[in-house]
């Protein structure tokens, strides 16, 4: 292990991160600047003001400032961590994003973990019993769920568990009439179950399919044939030759799914009215809250980047072969 190599790796990633973030920030800013949203009207929301007041607001929002100056200001403020004030919440964007993102992080983290573990297990079971009814059922399930819109899956789950069975509340992060700070853990957890279930059921399909196909490929390889001829069989064989080979790419794939995870969270939060970052993004988009939306774009890009970075890291840290070849030469 060479410290220099590690530093080089992180240095390279850091430079990439900075360049990508600047690109994302400029790109999203220019897109929203080109949009027909008028910041003053979005701020006023139809309230009547006199011409002179409007002129003051226009100069405050910088309506007639050239685009390059605006981008420069936006980048400088972004580096200082100031994302402006949200027009819906009338509070600093960073505070809102922090609060909402924490709520979403619980949802996304749990579903990420559950879908990864169960997807992998189901994939192993299906791959081991290739051609059996279990395998066929898994395949049908995966194809169907990958072709189904995730919000529709959420609606079905909501219908079954909340309305027909009545096991869980229909939505909202907290019960009506209770302050968000007073909510009990049970109340909060019971509202987390169904969104997590939906996201896990949807997220499990790609990883299960991948694991299944990889396992079938491994099992038809020559070294498994050799292992079989030595007398290995059953779960020992799967454990020694299958799981060892498949686990790492599966973990990597799961890390690379952060982008879909975020997208799924946006839709599922909308269905279950879960007060997370996805719902906030939709509200910001629909109500022309440009500062909040820009902030969410940047945060989501960071989120995806972290996923990709972890995927790379998992390769570097877990796989002994790559560690040797990359770090020793």
């Amino acid at each position, binding site marked *: 292990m060479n410290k220099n190599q590690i530093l080089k790796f992180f240095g390279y990633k850091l430079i990439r991160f900075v360049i990508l973030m600047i690109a994302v920030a400029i790109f999203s800013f220019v897109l929203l600047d080109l949009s027909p949203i008028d910041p003053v009207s979005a701020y006023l929301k139809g309230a009547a003001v006199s011409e002179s007041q409007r002129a003051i607001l226009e100069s405050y929002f910088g309506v007639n400032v050239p685009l390059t100056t605006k981008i420069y200001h936006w980048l400088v403020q972004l580096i200082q961590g100031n994302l402006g004030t949200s027009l819906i919440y009338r509070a600093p964007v960073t505070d809102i994003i922090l609060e909402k993102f924490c709520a979403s992080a619980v949802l996304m983290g749990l579903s990420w973990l559950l879908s990864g573990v169960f997807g992998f297990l189901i994939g192993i079971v299906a791959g081991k019993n290739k051609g059996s009814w279990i395998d066929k059922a898994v395949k049908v399930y995966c194809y169907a769920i990958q072709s189904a819109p995730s919000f529709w899956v959420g609606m079905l789950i909501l219908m079954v568990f909340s309305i027909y069975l009545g096991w869980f509340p229909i939505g909202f992060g907290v019960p009506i009439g209770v302050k968000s700070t007073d909510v009990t853990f049970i109340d909060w957890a019971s509202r987390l179950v169904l969104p997590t279930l939906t996201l896990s059921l949807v997220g499990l399909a790609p990883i299960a399919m991948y694991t299944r196909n990889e396992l079938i490929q491994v099992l038809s390889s020559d070294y498994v044939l050799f292992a079989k001829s030595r007398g290995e069989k059953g779960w020992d064989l799967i454990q020694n030759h299958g799981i060892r080979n498949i686990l790492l790419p599966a973990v990597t794939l799961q890390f690379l799914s952060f982008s879909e995870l975020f997208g799924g969270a946006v839709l599922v939060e909308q269905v279950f009215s879960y007060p997370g970052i996805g719902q906030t993004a939709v509200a910001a*988009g629909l109500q022309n809250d440009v500062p909040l939306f820009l902030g969410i774009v940047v945060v989501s890009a960071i989120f995806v980047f972290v996923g990709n970075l972890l995927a790379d890291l998992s390769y570097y840290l877990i796989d002994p072969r790559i560690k040797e070849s990359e770090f020793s030469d």
Partner: protein
Amino acid sequence: MIKKNKGDDKKQWFLYHANLRTKTIVIILISAIVIVSIFIASTFIKDLPTHFINANQMPSFEHPFGTDWMGRDMFQRTIAGLGLSLIVGFIASAISTLISIILGLLSSFNRFADEAVAGVIDLFGSIPHIILIILISIMFGGGVLGVVMGVGLTHWTPLARVLRSEVKEIRTKEYIHLAENLGKSKIWIATKHILPLIVSQIIVGVILMFPHAIMHEAAITFLGFGLPPHEPAIGVILSESMNYLASGSWWLAFYPGISLLIVVLLFDLIGENVEKLLNPETAQE
């Protein structure tokens, strides 16, 4: 293992003996006929009559998908919605394909162009897809245009990535160097020597792009961006049915969703089978 599969192929399949090629073509044709008939049927559905007497009826023979709160037949609304989704998906795929072909060919020009294309692909891949669609649809001011452009301008990345790596490989071929030495322009090489070789990738990529485009169109209209509430788009129907879930009108959400799922599956089926036919490794089985 392979022997067994070949034996299976020779077995009777439905009505007569068929090899893989016939099977694939039959599957493609049946799926295509279903999709085209949905599309044609949707063009005949213009204004749906409202019958408030028949409001909120369960599915029956008369109304296979039930009726909504205004007494409109949900089956007809669903078909109309699917037709709209198909149109949006078609336009969006056309835009995305065009972008990926242009970028793929552009990457053949020189190292700098290649790096630039890779950078743009990375940029589009770094923002979650649904957020990116919202961003672009806001830029176009929402509405139908916003949805079409939002979906169309974001689905080119996978195909562009494939084309770029294909182009990279083709560029190392000798006849490309020969053409360069003969003084042919970059554009001439790109269109005459590279484009014909990537056509099969483009066809498969387009068909597999379609279902994604339709799903994202449904998602974005479900969230409330774009189409007005009276348009019978699948996303609009589903978001409207959210209001009636609590009263037990399950058919309002169930049938439109499952119809969308079937259409998406049919496109996947067509894509996979076309890929089988175009890929020389599997086409001769």
